[in-house]
């Protein structure tokens, strides 16, 4: 037994001793960070960078490195950390990075040394990391009783398509700046507004898979301004640190009557925008139907509007737990809108819908991104579904809606969602967002 332990100990020691990852360590606001040495071209001291007008706040300017012009980025401003006063003569610590296709200089508080570690000892970052967005952290490693946060420079500076998207609009920039009563700091407040904006977008994605895009940008900008009013412009307070913060931020986003039966105003708003189809069959696709409350509510309106036509609703969700309950939904009479009353029946487990209503709805466990069997539908109801997909999936699904919806058909999306497409004409109101496919 002891010999086995010895073997284990030696192997562990060997693993620890083999150095296969070297990193340059430095400090930002008193904490230790590091960058993979393979990304670092050189280290230098410099000052008086050439200012570039109209650049992002964390861009210090450009610098002439032996004939090559490189951009200089202040990592402290980028990560919302305090910047020490610089006198004109003092030199600042500069790390020159060599990324895939260009070079870049970053300013840090002080550069420490090169540390060699074994890459197996790098641990993944914890989701609740303070100052720096978790996406930008490659891992955390301990060396000589100091913890180093390894920054993923490719992710931070890589030319990501989404970068374009998280660049905030001019309005919110000036709005947050104007809130600040201090003359000199107006610019700084505006700068952090910039970063808060993109960090909140990142955090919504991390915690709730909520993607800010053209679909919901209008709502997001409005909510961001509200959020600043609510929390003050202090960065610390503004950040979404946990899932419950993200829930709070999103609280106003969800459409009217999410997760319950539609109320009378919504039912009549829906009925009003339903097109007149002169045919005997009406087919409906309801992806992301959840527990099925909206499917049943919509079905009752369709029965009323298209009396005599044969109605077929194809409802699906990729959450197994919600969708499993949908076919045999049990509910209380008080929560039921009047229009659905004629379709109920008492069962052993409680009040349920009767076969007339159930027969027109087919609930499926289905991922909306996967192919589906039907050719064309007349109505698509997909409230608050697109916002919870990444931008690629959003584009794919909007395209799918264009392909699968018949000309003249109706598309319903979330109250706070909008589609910008020449093929969809807006006909909604404050209760419902609808589009007619042209």
């Amino acid at each position, binding site marked *: 037994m002891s010999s086995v332990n010895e073997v284990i100990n030696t192997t562990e020691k060997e693993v620890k001793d083999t150095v296969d990852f070297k990193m340059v360590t430095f400090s930002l606001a008193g904490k230790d960070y590091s960058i993979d040495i393979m990304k670092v071209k050189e280290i230098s001291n410099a000052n008086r960078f050439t200012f570039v007008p109209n650049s992002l706040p964390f861009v210090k300017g450009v610098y002439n490195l032996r004939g090559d012009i490189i951009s200089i980025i202040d990592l402290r401003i980028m990560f919302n950390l305090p910047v020490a006063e610089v006198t004109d003569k003092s030199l600042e610590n500069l790390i020159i990075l060599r990324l895939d296709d260009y070079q870049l200089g970053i300013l840090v508080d002080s550069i420490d040394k090169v540390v060699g570690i074994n890459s197996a000892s790098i641990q993944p970052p914890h989701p609740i990391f303070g100052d720096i967005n978790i996406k930008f952290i490659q891992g955390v490693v301990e060396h000589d009783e100091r913890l180093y946060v390894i920054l993923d420079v490719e992710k931070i500076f890589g030319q990501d398509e989404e970068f374009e998207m998280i660049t905030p609009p001019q309005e919110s920039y000036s709005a947050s700046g104007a809130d600040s009563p201090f003359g000199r700091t107006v610019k700084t407040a505006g700068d952090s507004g910039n970063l808060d904006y993109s960090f909140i977008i990142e955090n919504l994605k991390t915690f709730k898979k909520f993607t800010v895009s053209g679909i919901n940008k209008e709502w997001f900008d409005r909510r961001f301004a509200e959020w600043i009013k609510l929390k003050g412009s202090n960065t610390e307070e503004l950040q979404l640190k946990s899932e419950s913060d993200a829930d709070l931020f999103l609280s106003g986003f969800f459409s009217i009557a999410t997760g319950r039966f539609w109320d009378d105003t919504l039912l009549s708003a829906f009925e009003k925008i339903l097109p007149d189809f002169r045919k005997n069959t009406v087919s409906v696709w309801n992806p992301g139907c959840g527990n099925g409350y909206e499917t049943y509510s919509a079905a009752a309106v369709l029965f009323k509007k298209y009396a005599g036509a044969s109605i077929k609703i194809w409802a699906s969700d*990729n959450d197994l737990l919600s969708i499993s309950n949908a076919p045999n939904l049990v509910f209380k009479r008080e929560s039921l809108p009047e229009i659905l009353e004629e379709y109920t029946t008492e069962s052993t487990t409680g009040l349920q819908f009767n076969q007339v209503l159930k027969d027109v709805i*087919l609930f499926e*466990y289905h991922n909306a991104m996967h*192919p589906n069997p039907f050719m064309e539908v007349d109505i698509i109801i997909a409230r608050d579904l697109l916002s919870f997909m990444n931008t690629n999936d959003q584009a794919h699904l909007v395209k799918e809606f264009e392909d699968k919806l018949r000309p003249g058909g109706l598309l319903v999306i979330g109250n706070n969602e909008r589609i910008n497409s020449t093929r969809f004409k807006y006909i909604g109101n404050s209760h419902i967002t609808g589009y007619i496919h042209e």
Partner: protein
Amino acid sequence: MRVEYINPFVEAAFNVLKEVLTSDVKRGELYLKSTTQPVMGVAALVGLAGNVEGRVLFDMSIETALAIASDMNGEKLEQMDDLAKATITELANMITAQAVTKLHELGFTFDLTPPAIFTGENMEVTDSEVEALIVPMELSYGKVEINVAVRERV
């Protein structure tokens, strides 16, 4: 995949495996797939027809298949011979039949095709325009994945 179909398959797989094997049976997390999927080494396939069209695929590695066949026969089988194949085929038949019986009680009528068994390395399965429900079952001999791809007739 229609919600009502899911449970019968999960229950039948669990009950049958529990009944015929001495191993512990644990159900894994269900999920959906629509792309081409690799097959582990032994695949038993049962076709479905009637109200629906589709198939059920039982997928496991050769080692797992041999351990299951040995357990069911009460003797140690060393290679994928006729007896081992017949045993896996029978297991696939039992599970699918029990699921279809349960579905029949709920009012859905399906017919089964005789099972076919495929063995080999580096195999893949692709379903066109149907997504597959994956029901993973963890046995002490390894993992058996039950891959159900059915759709309503339109």
